[in-house]
Structure formats: structure tokens, C-alpha cells
């Protein structure tokens, strides 16, 4: 049986590049103003999966749950070498916390069917929770290796994988039976650049939303179906699944399926507390150090 790896990926707002107009006056975040990027650790997870494919053959499927424009990130997965890209997207998934997200992802994995490995980033930079990986593994009833630093050996005959994982002040090497879910830490694998030939091919890959957007009133539904079929036949379809497609129960999705709710959001307001302005001169430093010594801060 050839290797099949699923990689959980997420498109995230680039929280490291927050400028003034991103924050609304009421303290909420205007996500539309933030550039969307491929979550860095997920990209490393994809790289690890592609390296295993380079060595053992098989297939890599990129799976995301997100808004329609997450198709941009899925195209990047295809440019890097993913064989299949799936966008799980439905307005009813909106405001999902990690539990509702992992519920939807595990249903999507069920629809995908057989797999040997699931990779994902340890955490996404917009929440830093590191919860979706383990929660998805729990829902699938499979073991997990979190904080993966390196995949050392994959034995498809014995159906085991060995991976090195970070622990406090050290590391451990675990051997897990397949299938298993691994979450990948930063610096596990430098993502490869886009393959130019793949880029030329897959820049035309489209999700159902994108195909629908090209259809206007002058076209009928039959025309739409034919277009979808053609794109699929050309292997350029980013599969787009809604709640029904993954057989998810709406009560466990989105806000309704999320036990955690945001009760209150406060803008970070600094008190503007008084501090002593110390001139950057030898005299200024001397005075400050004298004060600190009198306060018994030194010594």
C-alpha cells in the first residue's frame, strides 16, 4: 500500500505585522485589514510530509478549514508538491473554537478515507493554542506525537514511525504505530521553494467558490457543471466541502459547537504611568545606579 499523508494547514492573519488600522476603536480586530499568510509551522509540516513522499512515494493531501480565500494557501501547497487540496468551508463553521474546528477536521479526514500519517503545525500564530492537533487525534482515536523535531524512520512494512520530539530540557524518540498524528515545531524542516512548473500548472487551480464567481447570469447550471467537470478532469480542482459534504452535525460546528466563548475583549490600554526619564549620559546613568543601590536592588 502506498503512503498517504494528510497535512492540516491553516491560513492565518499575519499577527506579526499589525498596523494601526487593524484594531477598531472598540478593541476588536478588523481581520480584513490583515495580510493572510500560510501558518509557518503548517508549512514546515507540509515540507516534512513531502520529504517522506520523496523517499517512500505515495500521496500528500493538504486539508484546511477556513474562509473561501484560504484557497490561496492551498494553491501554495500544490506549488510545493501536494497532490490534492481540500477546502472545508461553510458559513456555519464560522467562529469555531479549537474543539469545533477539530470536530470538522476529523469529519473531513473520515471523508478522505484511508491515511497513514497526519501532520500539522504545532500551533497557529493567530492563537498559539496548540490544541487542534491533539483534539483532532483524539477524535480520530489515534495516537499523537506533539512537538515533533524530526521524523527519523518510517517503516511501511512494520507500519511504524519513529520521531524525535522536544521535551523540557531535552528530547525523546518515540515509535508509534500508524496511523498517527504528528505536530511539528518551528525549524523542523525548512519549506522548499515553489516548484516553477507546478506553479505554472496550479496557478489555474480553483475552488468551487472561485469557479462560481466566474459564472454569471448568462450561464446556466449545466454550463457550470460542465466547467467543474473540465477543471476536475484537468486535475485543477481545489475540492470544496461544506457541512453536508463531510456529514458533520451542525450542532457541533461553528459557534454552537464551541464550548469556549469570548466574553469580553479589551483593548490594551497602557496606564501612561510615570517613569523617570534618564538621559543617555554618564551622569544620568550614575544617578540611576545610585538610586538603585540605595533601594538595595543591586548587591
Amino acid at each position, binding site marked *: 500500500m502506498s503512503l498517504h499523508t494528510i497535512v492540516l494547514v491553516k491560513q492565518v492573519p499575519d*499577527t506579526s505585522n499589525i498596523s494601526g488600522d487593524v484594531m477598531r476603536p472598540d478593541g476588536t480586530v478588523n481581520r480584513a485589514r490583515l495580510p493572510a499568510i500560510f501558518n509557518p509551522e503548517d508549512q514546515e509540516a507540509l515540507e516534512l510530509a513531502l520529504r517522506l513522499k520523496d523517499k517512500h512515494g505515495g500521496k500528500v493531501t493538504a486539508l484546511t478549514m477556513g474562509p473561501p480565500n484560504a484557497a490561496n494557501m492551498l494553491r501554495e501547497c500544490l506549488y510545493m508538491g501536494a497532490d490534492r487540496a481540500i477546502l472545508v468551508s461553510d458559513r456555519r463553521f464560522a467562529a469555531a473554537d479549537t474543539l469545533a474546528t*477539530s470536530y470538522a477536521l476529523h469529519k473531513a479526514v473520515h471523508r478522505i478515507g484511508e491515511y497513514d500519517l497526519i501532520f500539522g503545525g504545532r500551533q497557529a500564530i493567530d492563537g498559539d493554542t496548540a490544541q487542534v492537533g*491533539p*483534539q483532532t487525534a483524539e477524535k480520530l482515536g489515534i495516537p499523537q506525537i506533539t512537538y515533533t523535531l524530526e521524523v527519523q524512520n518510517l517503516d511501511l512494512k512494520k507500519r511504524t514511525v519513529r520521531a524525535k520530539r522536544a521535551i523540557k530540557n531535552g528530547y525523546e524518540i518515540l515509535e508509534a504505530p500508524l496511523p498517527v498524528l504528528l505536530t511539528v515545531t518551528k525549524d523542523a524542516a525548512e519549506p522548499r521553494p515553489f516548484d516553477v512548473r507546478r506553479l505554472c500548472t496550479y496557478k489555474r487551480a480553483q475552488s468551487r467558490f472561485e469557479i462560481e464567481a466566474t459564472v454569471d447570469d448568462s450561464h446556466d447550471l449545466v454550463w457550470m457543471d460542465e466547467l467543474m467537470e473540465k477543471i476536475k478532469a484537468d486535475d485543477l480542482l481545489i475540492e470544496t466541502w461544506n457541512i453536508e459534504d463531510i456529514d458533520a452535525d451542525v450542532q457541533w460546528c461553528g459557534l454552537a459547537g464551541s*464550548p469556549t466563548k469570548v466574553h469580553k475583549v479589551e483593548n*490594551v490600554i497602557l496606564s501612561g504611568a510615570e517613569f523617570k526619564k534618564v538621559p543617555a549620559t554618564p551622569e544620568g546613568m550614575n544617578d540611576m*545606579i545610585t538610586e538603585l543601590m540605595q*533601594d538595595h536592588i543591586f548587591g
Partner: protein
Amino acid sequence: MRSQLKDMVWVFAEQTDGVMADVSLELLHKARTLAEKMNSQVSAVLLGDKVEGLSKTLFAHGADNVYLLDDAELKDFRSMPYANLITNLVEEKRPRVVLFGATHIGRDIAPRVASHTRSGLTADCTELKIKTLTIRKVEHEDLLLQIRPAFGGNIIATIISPDVEIQMATIREGVMEMGEPDASRKGIIIPVKVELDPVEVAVKIIEKHQEASSVNLKGAPIIVAGGYGADTPEKFQLIKDLAKVLGAEVAGSRAAVDAGLIDSERQVGQTGTTVRPKLYIAVGISGAIQHRAGMQESQKIIAINSDAEAPIFQVAHYGIHGDLTDVIPKLIAAYKSQLH
């Protein structure tokens, strides 16, 4: 009397090789204040092999009960057996609050336990409170307010889980203060039967390397920390030089860690270590909320920054506006001159 109280506040007691993690003890002290508001006892959940002796420490730091799961299979931490056994116990006893240290272990199992029990779970909380809230005319008792910076530190979010029974949170080491242990406190050990399916113990540990940490940020009286403003190894060396002269520990912001200038175990902030030294010198650190969350309770803070508007100045006692390559040598010279 105590036995009449409910058993609603739990702390996962994390041990490695028979040594209790500090964060678990810190959480027990926090759990006590939460439990008082809820008229509840505090219970610790302890898993391991021959670890019963640790119960005394847990009682001294605030546990009324220790659920003890002692088995050779639990000698070393593994996700599935640990998570599944805790899940079973949580499902049976149904506590209202379960706290985990946000460690490599706590962050590994808490999501699995929360997933199976359909509990609310918030990662890396910087503050916890118990409150009764009325939401859409329905009164919710004993809600755990899970407070954390979010969204790149631009906001502080209060998360609640009003519609579920079990509320969970992970908290980084150092965020909650460890109170004094009380050796006279007594408690009850409740042994829990350990039954594991072969599937649950199928993951094997082939090798394990762990070194005693040489870094003790939490215990350091003086810390000199660098951030993105010290974005070259040469500039960061100045920070190390200053630390050496002052006999201080070197630390960094997340930006410094991400830039590879310093090890992640020296990261101060929400996703690193929370420190309360006598003196904290922040060099080239702008002062995002996540960083401030990890250092703002320092007794004295000196901020050195080339940006006069940097938020770090708002939590500082002394602010030096200037370039670190100019300021640090002057500071070192001034300190040395006063020593003589």
C-alpha cells in the same frame, strides 16, 4: 467539615522522574483561591510509578485530595495512557475546573481530555477568576474566567465556557505565584485503579535525553533581556556583557528567540517564562502585552529603547531613550565606577 465541601477544582500534578513540576504547585495555590469562591475542595491528579510520596508536597501546597494513579506503565509520560486515564476520572467525577501547566506535557494532554469530555479549554491563561455571570437572563454559577492576551497581543480576551460543565485552562510556569508550603496540612490519598488497553500503550519511548536546566530565570534577582532592537549577534553580545557585569541572567523577548539570538528556554513572556526579579532591564524590547505579561511585576524595570514611544516605557520605572550600542557601554562604565 471539609468532606462536606464539593470536589470541583482539580490540578494536574505533573511529575518527571519523581520530581514535581513547579507549575503544578503554583497552580495548587491558585486553585485554593478559586475553590474558596466555589466552596470547594482542591484535588490534585497524580500519575506515575511509585510516586505516592509526592502527595505530601501536594497537600502542603494546597491539595485536599490526591487522586493517585500509580502504575509501572505510567513511569514515563506518554500521551494516550495519561490523557485517557485523566479523561476517565474527569468523566466519572465531573469537576468544574481542571488546570494544567502549559508545559510540553500539559499542552499535549489537556486538549485530548477536553476533546473527549467536550470541555472548554483555553491555552496560556495569564489570569483566572471565578465569577457568577448572567448571560441572556440565565445565571451561570462558578464560571471560570480564562483571561489571556490574544491576537498578537493587541487585545486581552476573557474567555468563558458557560454552556458546558467542565472548564479547563493551561497556565505557563511562573504566571501564578507559588505560596509558602504548609507542612502541617493534611489530605486524603484516593487511589484510582489503572487499567490500560494494549492500544493505549502502543507508542514506545525508544530514547530519552533530558538535562538539568542551567537556566533559572525565575530565581534570578537581576535579568537583562534583549528584543528585536538588538537584532544582530553583535548587539546581543552587548546585552550579555551587561548581564555579566551585573551578575544577571540573560533573557529575550519572543522576537529575539524567533530571530535565533537566544534559546527559547530564556524567553520571557506569555509563551515563555514569567519572572519577578528585583531588577529587569529591557533592551530594545518594544513591550508587546505578551512580553509585559511576563515581566511587569518586576520590582524595578529599566527600559532602554531607541523608540521614545515604545510601550515598554509605560511599565518602566526608569526609561532611557537611546541607541543600545551607545547606552549599554555607558551603563557598564557607570556601574563599574560606582563599585570602586
